């Protein structure tokens, strides 16, 4: 992504669209990613024999740290495309896999 310009002071000043895409990646992308981690995480714990309630508590304890890490990464990674792909795409895939896995356990 190269929607940045370099003004005289040497600091890059991002365009409005780029900022909006970063912020939405940080908020929506990280939320989707956290959903993926929770769903897949619980499903894997269930496969390993942990009771559902314990698995859920474990993932609830972890998911907000995942969100914070994903959010920070969304602003520090160079490629905006990779950010969206990893967070929203990865989150979606993990959610789907976790859901399918959990369905199979019923």
């Amino acid at each position, binding site marked *: 992504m190269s929607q940045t310009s370099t003004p005289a002071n040497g600091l890059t000043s991002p365009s409005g669209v780029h900022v909006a895409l970063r912020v939405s990646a940080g908020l929506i992308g990280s939320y989707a990613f956290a959903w993926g981690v929770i769903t897949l995480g619980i499903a894997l714990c269930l496969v390993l024999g942990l*009771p559902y309630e314990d698995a859920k508590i*474990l993932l609830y304890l972890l998911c907000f740290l995942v969100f*914070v890490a994903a959010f920070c990464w969304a*602003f*520090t990674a160079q490629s905006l495309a990779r950010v969206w792909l990893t967070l929203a795409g990865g989150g979606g895939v993990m959610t789907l896999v976790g859901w399918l896995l*959990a369905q199979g356990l019923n």
Partner: protein
Amino acid sequence: MFHSFRAAMTWVHTWFGLFFGFVLIVVFFFGSLSVFDREIDRWALPETRFAPQPMPSFDTMLRPIFEKIEPDEEEVAAAHSRVIGELPAKLPLMNWSAYTTHRDPVLELYAEFAVKNNPKDPRDHVHGHVTIDPRNGQSLPLDQLKLGSRFFYPMHISLHLHWLDLGYWIVGLAALMLLVALVSGAVIHRKLLREFFTFRPDKAGQRSRLDLHNLTGVVALPFHVLFPLTGLVIFAGIYFPVSETLLQPNAQQHERREAQTRGLAFAPAGVRAPMASVDAMVTEAKRRWAERGMPGEVGFLTVTHVGDANGYVSIFRAGSDRVTLVGQGVHFKAATGRVLYEEPAPNAIRSVNEFLTGLHLQHFRHWLLRWLYVVGGLSGCVCMATGLCFFVSKRKRRHAAQGVSGARWVEAFAIASVTGTVLATLGILNANRILPTDLPDRGGWEEKAFWGTWLLTLLHAAVRSGPARCALLAPAWREQCWAVAALALSAVLLNWATTGDHLLRTLTRGYWPVAGFDLVLLAVSAIATLSARKLGRAERSAPNTPQDDSGGDLSEAEVAHG
């Protein structure tokens, strides 16, 4: 988008900190008040100013009161829109519960009534509740507003924005952004240890403000990390409702299995049954706790499927002597009083969770720690406020030169969220002592006093931040400090005038809930007076020159400690 990792983190810290700083001040402030919510309730409801009481006898006192509880009219009215056909005139009773802590003189009793004809939710229900004086069983008027536990505490967790649970989401997002601000703040200020010992109050405004921002952020760092995180974990079910959506089948299967192995019926049998003595069950539960080496009092008592053959009574121990809230539940068959299930010690995952949530909700008996929570919360307020002030002072002159009003508006909102929040709180406290006791919907008027005062402080801040445009300190800060000083003092005087409980009396009697709150109000008044005078001197000494340090010792690079 940014030329370096630190530039990105600085951007995130500045802009998300600005946007959520206002919310965080409010959440921190009302969180700090919530630490003493029960005590504030006593200040606001003079007829409840007596010593905390243990859970009274269920058989002789609570049961007849429970039986008289009616469903809440507003909840029933709302339920009409969720059902097919008509609601029955008398909704079937489901459950009863009572919760108390070592700080509660009054006891709140809850009942749940089934709403059976909701096609979307077979477990739909409405609530009824009553607050009683456990010494004699008399109930207190329903429209009394418990200021601490029913207004300041909900403000802390949901901002009183109920539509779509919006308040919970805003507070949750603000908590996440606080964690982000701590991470990005640590990246910006790499020399954490040095900043721990750095505070230069004599240095010109901007420099000392940044010092104070770093100091309050770093000193209370464990607090600032743990509280947003544990708060989020407590409400994780709202933010990520897995059990109600994607993994609902797994969750329900688990619940059914759990009910089966424990012998605690998931659903009523539909056969009426009498109820054995609950007092005898309480005695048995206490005996079992003592046997486990942890004798204690009842904190939480529930009756599930009241009057049904599948009914059971659950008795939980009050966690006054430990971080965990309530626990060590013993479950009894309601009809016979036989023990169905005694909860084992929690496993590692649950222990961590119970410790973290207990740490946040703090119902344990430890007054020093309780005060440290207030200090931590208020240091959070100072951290956010100085951050906002730093944002303003850094841009004020530039914005003034450019004719932009951005910094002015940020300052107006900062004033409304710092002194304005305090004023709104004092507004509701004063209203609580002024409004006639027989006023219909008195609690509603008290709430209006709160929101009205807050709105006034915002308008005042907007009007009186004009000089901010030419890089002067907004006079609204000073004026609102004077208002805080006056209203805090008048609250103490009104408490004296309307209840006769002046400090001399409450202190000699050792009634700390009211004495302590009066002392805090006096301290607030004194601090506000000092602040107002100091602000006045600053304004007079620099009538025409910008108040920030223009010596160039605070370049962009130094802000980032480059």
